[in-house]
C-alpha cells in the first residue's frame, strides 16, 4: 500500500486545481482519473467561458484545460490515468484499479472531485438508439469528431441545451427545435439569442411525448404543457429527427462520499443531494474534502475556484502553509467565487452554498 499526503479522485477542473495548489505548497499529491486523459469535461467545451477576466472569460474551455494540464505537470503532482477509485475505507484508504490492476493508497487527506452525472428523462421510446445525453453528444462531436445524426431535437433550454445546440450546428447538424417544459428559457439570453438568430425555434411549455422508430429514432412527438405541467391533448406535433438530445441537468456523482459516511443535504439549487461541507470544502468526515460539481452543480470556473480553495486548505491543515499565508490565498479565491455567484442565476446558488456552510458549523 502506497502512502501519500493527499489523494484526489477526479482530474477535472476542481481536482486539477486542487492538485496544483497543494503540490505547489509542497504537499505530496496523487491524482486519480478513470479516463485516458485528464481535464474532465473541459475538452468538450469549445465555447468561450463567461465571467470576468479573473475567471478567464473569453477563453475556450479546451484552452483552460490545456493550461491546467501544463500547470499540474509543473507542480509535481502525480497524475494516474486509467485509475478507477472504487472504494474508500476507514476514511483514509482508497482502493484503485489502475491499468487493470488493483492497488491501495493510504492518504492523510482525501479530496473527492468526482463531478456529476447527467439526468435522464423517461418517455415512451427513450431507450431507442439515437436518444443521447448532451454530454455524450459533446464528447462525440467535439472530442472524437463524429456526428451521431443529422436532424436533432434538443430537450432542455438551460445553458447546456443551448450551447450544445450551437455546437451541433457548428459540427454540421440541423437542430430542428429546442423544447422546454418551463414557460421560460432556462439559460442565458446571450446563448438563446444566438440560437434563435440561427432560426431554431425554442418551444417553451412543451415537452416530448414519445420517440418513434424501428430500432432507432425516426420521429419525435411533441406536446404542449399547461401551467401545471400536464400534457394538453390535441396539441401534438411530429418532427422528423434521428437524434434526441437530453439536456435536463446534472446530479452530483456522490457514491464515494456516501461510502465515506459524509453527511448529505438536499439542495435543489445545487443539483440535489450533496455532501455538507464547510468554507474549507471539508465534509463532516474530518480529512475528507469535496470540490466541483460534487459540492454543488455549478460552472467549470466555480469548480476551479473551489478546487484551489480545497488545495490551499489541505496544505494549511498539513502545515505546508501558515495560517496567515493560507488566509491571504483563500481570501482572493472566495472573492472570485462570489463574483461567479452573482446575478439572478448565481444568487440562489450563493444563498444555498452559504446555508450549506452554516449547516456544517452546527
Amino acid at each position, binding site marked *: 500500500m502506497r502512502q501519500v499526503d493527499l489523494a484526489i479522485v477526479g482530474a477535472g477542473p476542481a481536482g486539477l486545481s486542487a492538485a496544483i495548489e497543494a503540490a505547489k505548497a509542497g504537499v505530496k499529491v496523487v491524482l486519480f482519473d478513470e479516463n485516458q486523459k485528464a481535464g474532465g469535461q473541459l475538452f468538450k467545451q469549445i465555447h468561450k467561458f463567461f465571467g470576468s477576466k479573473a475567471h478567464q472569460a473569453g477563453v475556450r474551455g479546451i484552452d483552460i484545460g490545456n493550461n491546467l494540464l501544463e500547470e499540474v505537470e509543473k507542480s509535481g503532482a502525480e497524475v494516474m490515468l486509467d485509475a478507477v477509485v472504487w472504494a474508500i475505507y476507514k476514511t483514509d484508504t482508497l482502493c484503485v484499479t489502475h491499468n487493470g490492476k488493483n492497488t491501495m493508497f493510504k492518504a492523510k487527506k482525501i479530496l473527492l472531485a468526482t463531478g456529476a452525472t447527467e439526468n435522464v428523462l423517461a418517455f415512451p421510446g427513450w431507450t*431507442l438508439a*439515437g436518444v*443521447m*445525453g448532451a454530454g455524450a453528444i459533446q*464528447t462525440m462531436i467535439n472530442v472524437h469528431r463524429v456526428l451521431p445524426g443529422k436532424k436533432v431535437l434538443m430537450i432542455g433550454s438551460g445553458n447546456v441545451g443551448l450551447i450544445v445546440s450551437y455546437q451541433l450546428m457548428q*459540427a454540421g447538424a440541423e437542430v430542428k427545435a429546442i423544447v422546454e417544459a418551463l414557460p421560460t428559457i432556462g439559460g442565458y439570453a446571450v446563448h438563446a439569442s444566438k440560437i434563435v438568430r440561427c432560426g431554431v425555434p425554442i418551444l417553451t411549455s412543451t415537452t416530448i411525448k414519445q420517440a418513434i422508430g424501428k*430500432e432507432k429514432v425516426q420521429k419525435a412527438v411533441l406536446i404542449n404543457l399547461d401551467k401545471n405541467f400536464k400534457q394538453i391533448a390535441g396539441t401534438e406535433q411530429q418532427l422528423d429527427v434521428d437524434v434526441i438530445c437530453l439536456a435536463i441537468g446534472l446530479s452530483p456523482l456522490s457514491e464515494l462520499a456516501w461510502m465515506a459516511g459524509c453527511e448529505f443535504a438536499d439542495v435543489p439549487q445545487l443539483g440535489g443531494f450533496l455532501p455538507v461541507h464547510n468554507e474549507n470544502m471539508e465534509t463532516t468526515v474530518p480529512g475528507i474534502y469535496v470540490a466541483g460539481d460534487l459540492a454543488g452543480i455549478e460552472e467549470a470556473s466555480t469548480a476551479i475556484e473551489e478546487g484551489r480553495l480545497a488545495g490551499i486548505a489541505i496544505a494549511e491543515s498539513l502545515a505546508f502553509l501558515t495560517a496567515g499565508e493560507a488566509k491571504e490565498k483563500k481570501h482572493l479565491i472566495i472573492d472570485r467565487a462570489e463574483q461567479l455567484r452573482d446575478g439572478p442565476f448565481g444568487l440562489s446558488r450563493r444563498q444555498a452554498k452559504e446555508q450549506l456552510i452554516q449547516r456544517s458549523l452546527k
Partner: protein
Amino acid sequence: MRIKEHPILGPLVKKTVVKIEVDGRLIDAFEGEPIAAALMAVGKSIFRYTKKKGEPRGVFCAIGQCTDCMMTVDGVPNVRTCITPVKAGMKIKTQKQTGELRTAGQ
C-alpha cells in the same frame, strides 16, 4: 459521419488508420479512438440487444457510465465501447443479451 471541417477546431487531424472487423465487415477506424466513435462514423447505431426483451440499444452517455454501448470485443462480452480504444484487427460483434462466456480452449 466524420466531422472533417470545423469552424472552431479546424480540419480533422489525420491519425493512423487501421482496419477493424464489425459483425464480419471490415471498416476503417482511427487507432486509439473509442470503438463507439469508429462505429458511429460508419453509421452503426445499434450496439446490442437487451437480455429480457431483446430491445436495441445504442450509445447513450459516451463516458462509460450507462453500459448501453456494450459489445463483444475479441470474444470478451460486455465491453464498454465508448471508452475502449481501437486497436488494429479487433473483432467486434453486436451483442445479444449478456454475451457468452468463452469455454476452455477457445
